[in-house]
């Protein structure tokens, strides 16, 4: 370990220190939510700045190759910090009226984010697993954050049971991989696998390991049929937490896939490609079909997030299905990263609006809550429409470019993956039905007699502004679109160079 190692990893250390600082501050000044919230917001901005400062254009290995700082790490870290920032901005409007403290919330969230950041640069199977656990354990706590609410507790327990179950499966898979290759270093795993005779069948131990790893990550990204924990956990959690859970752990799990499957397991990608293609197809389709029948917007968004997992997996499938070294490989990973950015902002935005409506206690997330919103709170309704159109994939929003991007990658990859492109767009058309249904309630129904005005705090407005601006700008402002594309390209390229190098 050298000094420069510490400098390179300073954003991660900073976030952990920030979380601990908030706990201390809360002990000194209890009941001062504003201090912890202010500290978090300022700290996250500093953390993002720090991430940009230490960013490297070339991969830089530290801690004897256990961790790496490369453009992918920086790309993902900034995204994670942005997700945390929006979540913290949105949360007070929901938590305060329910008497839930902010300090514990932000500290727990920051620990989870540090786990995600650990995953993003991890170069070792064990570090990967550590990061994963650091990510999900605070997640269980957040899901059950409203501890007097039965639904919140129920969701948290389901999330915890299935989550730890899948972590165990995943760990078993890691162990088998280690047993087969004799190393936990990702590069050495890849090198060892690259020497296999690809023509013959995989050894049973490795095949078993691969199956367990796939199952484990499929749970984490909530791919069908490993999605059963999602709707209950999402619906039961406090709304800002749901927003975070639908984005943070999901993107982090995709980061894990990039590090594990794309880096370590790339040499045997022919063996896991069919699984990814099939999973992507059924995840999109089933998520959308079930979302069609939901009357609760939170639950609907939960199922729709499953569908979006499917769309992101199309990017992964494009990478996996494309010939080694082809441009489609890069396009698939770029699409995956671009989609993750667009999805993070538009989905957080949609959940932020739900949180804002639930500012008063007792307001449910049933679709009736949205009736006549266009009259009661025009700006909230317009922003919700923006997010929903973006989730549908209507131009010129971020969601449209994201879909176009993964579809383009799938078309480039050809073969069975191009069938996924068609399935993806048909799904997008089906999804329009349930997203637009909310628009119908907002603009085409009259508000109920009992409806009271929607109140939003300054921080909530800031959170909405960030998500809305990003949703519009990624779509409409060419330099921003190109910028995100460019960063995604650089990040994807590093991954491929390393894979090619074995």
């Amino acid at each position, binding site marked *: 370990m050298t000094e420069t190692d510490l400098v390179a990893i300073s954003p991660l250390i900073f976030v952990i220190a920030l979380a601990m600082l908030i706990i201390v501050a809360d002990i000194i000044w209890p009941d001062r939510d504003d201090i912890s919230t202010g500290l978090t917001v300022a700290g996250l901005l500093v953390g993002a700045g720090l991430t940009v400062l230490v960013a490297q254009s070339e991969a830089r290995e530290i801690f004897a190759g256990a961790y790496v700082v490369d453009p992918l790490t920086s790309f993902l870290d900034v995204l994670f910090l942005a997700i945390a920032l929006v979540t913290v901005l949105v949360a007070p409007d929901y938590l305060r009226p329910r008497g839930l403290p902010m300090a514990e919330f932000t500290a727990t969230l920051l620990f989870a984010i540090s786990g995600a950041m650990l995953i993003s640069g991890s170069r070792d199977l064990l570090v990967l697993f550590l990061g994963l656990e650091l990510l999900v354990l605070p997640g269980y706590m957040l899901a059950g954050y409203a501890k007097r609410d039965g639904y919140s507790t129920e969701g948290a327990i389901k999330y915890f049971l299935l989550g730890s179950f899948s972590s165990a499966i995943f760990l078993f898979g890691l162990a088998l991989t280690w047993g087969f290759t004799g190393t936990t270093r990702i590069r050495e795993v890849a090198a060892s696998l690259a020497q296999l005779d690809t023509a013959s069948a995989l050894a049973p131990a490795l095949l078993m390991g691969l199956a367990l790893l796939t199952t484990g990550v499929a749970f984490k990204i909530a791919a069908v049929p490993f999605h059963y924990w999602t709707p209950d956990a999402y619906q039961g959690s406090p709304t800002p937490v749901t927003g975070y859970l639908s984005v943070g752990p999901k993107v982090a799990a995709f980061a894990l896939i990039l590090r594990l499957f794309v880096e370590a397991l790339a040499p045997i990608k022919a063996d896991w490609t069919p699984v990814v293609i099939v999973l992507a197809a059924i995840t999109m389709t089933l998520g959308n079909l079930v979302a069609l029948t939901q009357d609760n917007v939170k639950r609907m968004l939960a199922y729709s997030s499953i569908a979006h997992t499917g769309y992101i997996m199309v990017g992964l499938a494009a990478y996996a299905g494309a010939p080694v070294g082809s441009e489609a490989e890069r396009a698939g990973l770029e699409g995956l990263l671009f989609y993750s950015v667009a999805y993070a902002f538009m989905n957080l935005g949609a959940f932020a609006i739900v949180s804002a409506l639930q500012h008063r206690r007792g307001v449910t997330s049933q679709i009736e809550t949205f009736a006549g919103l266009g009259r009661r709170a025009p700006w909230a309704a317009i922003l919700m429409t923006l997010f929903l159109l973006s989730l549908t994939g*209507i131009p010129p929003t971020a969601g*449209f470019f994201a879909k176009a991007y993964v*579809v*383009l990658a799938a078309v480039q990859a050809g073969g069975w993956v191009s069938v996924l492109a068609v399935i993806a767009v048909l799904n997008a058309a089906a999804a329009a039905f349930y997203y637009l249904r909310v628009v119908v309630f907002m603009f*085409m129904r009259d508000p109920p007699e009992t409806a009271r005005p929607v109140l939003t705090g300054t921080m909530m407005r800031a959170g909405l502004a960030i998500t809305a601006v990003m949703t519009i700008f990624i779509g409409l402002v*060419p330099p921003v679109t190109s910028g995100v594309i460019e960063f995604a*390209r650089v990040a994807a390229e590093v991954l491929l160079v390393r894979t090619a190098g074995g």
Partner: protein
Amino acid sequence: MTNLPILTLITFVPLAGALLIAFLPRGRPDLARWAALITSLVSFVLSLLLLPAFEVGAPGFQFKEQADWIPAFGIQYKLGIDGISLALVVLTTTLSWISILASFGPIKDRVKEYMISFLILEVGMIGVFVALDTFLFYIFFEIVLVPMYLIIGIWGGANRIYATLKFVLYTLIGSLLMLVAILATAFSFQALNGGNWAGAFDYEQLRGFGFDPGFQAFAFLAFALAFAIKVPMFPFHTWLPDAHVEAPTAGSVILAGVLLKLGGYGFIRYAVPLFPDAAVTFAPAIIVLSLIAIIYGAIVALVQPDLKKLVAYSSVSHMGFVTLGIFVFQQQGLEGAVLQMVNHGVITGALFLCVGVIYERTHDRTIARMGGLAAPVPVYAALLGFFMLASLGLPGLSGFVGEFLVVLGTFDVMPGAAFVAMLVVVLSAAYLMWMFQRVVFGELSDFLRGIGHHLTDVTPVELLTLTPLVALTLLLGVFPGLILELLHGPVNDVIAAVSGGTVIAR
């Protein structure tokens, strides 16, 4: 030609108006109305300025504007027009201000939002006709969807939500598959170009590129499905009657007048020239479907009890002529198809306005409850009669010329099809004249008598919306050459693209 980016101005002036209206005070609906009317008039006048400046007969596209948009994929902001787009752009700007003016009375609720939606709709419609980049084209094509969804869904009739969702879902399924085809086209272009993305979405480069026939079949079908739903071609037409019946009057005018043309324009501009081999292969099937649409639309119109539904089904029939004219790949047929699009826009738009006028007074559109309108509202009856005759194709009025040219063109290539298409002249005379007779002639019906003094003749504003359309119908009926001379060049290009393959039945 000056350096003024006139196409950008025409397209985005309505957007500027929409933004302006967003900041107008909520309590002043009159301000929003006038702002919308003035903006659409500015766009209209600008589009008229194109007419003298346009060089008739010059090859290729004029008033071109070009800028990089997403250079990584060669996506450009590229605009330009030829004779076909010019005619349709002027049609769009004309019908837009007329529709906005026609909404002054009927739309009393949420005027601001209505006007904003309408202006954004106009941006999308003009954009589709001027875009020369497939990606940009797709974006404009989709932008049209959202305001129309809101216009039907918020200001529509009783069953509006069902109608508007059906409209959106039908259109989306088609257009999203087209998106896949657009991306696939761009990809195969760059793959054959040594991995260079430059020009992969550029219409002028894609055109005549000569894609692999197998790929053409896939891409053509995806494009054709999107456009067939928009036109709408039998059997994809079922969203149209619902959408028309529920839409507010101005929404119906734009829907019939411009939105259906997006489909016809898409066939001529994109589906046929980009994938000529596939177009030739599938032409017989499309011709058969067009004939079915022509006959079927007319027969169903015959039995409609509702005025608006009758006009809606007559649209299915008339638009069948458009697709028929396109897919015979013959000079008169294609020119007739474009002319028919313009004429149908004017005449059917006017018919919907007429239905709107009577609906404003009676809040009913049932033909059986009407009768004897000639006595109390003579001017209205005359106008309705005029457009009815134009719609059934009376020589001397514009409706005749387009259909005649299409039939002539078809006769040249496949006489049997021409004969079938001719049959519809009888049918359309039947359903239109029967409708007119039941609504206008005879004793004043009890229902209308109950309306009493509310049954007034057309107001000056309504007259102002209908008169330009009367003038256009007469003008294009007598001098169809005004538009036809714009079409010779572009139509020849389309035929040249197709005749690389074998022309059918020759």
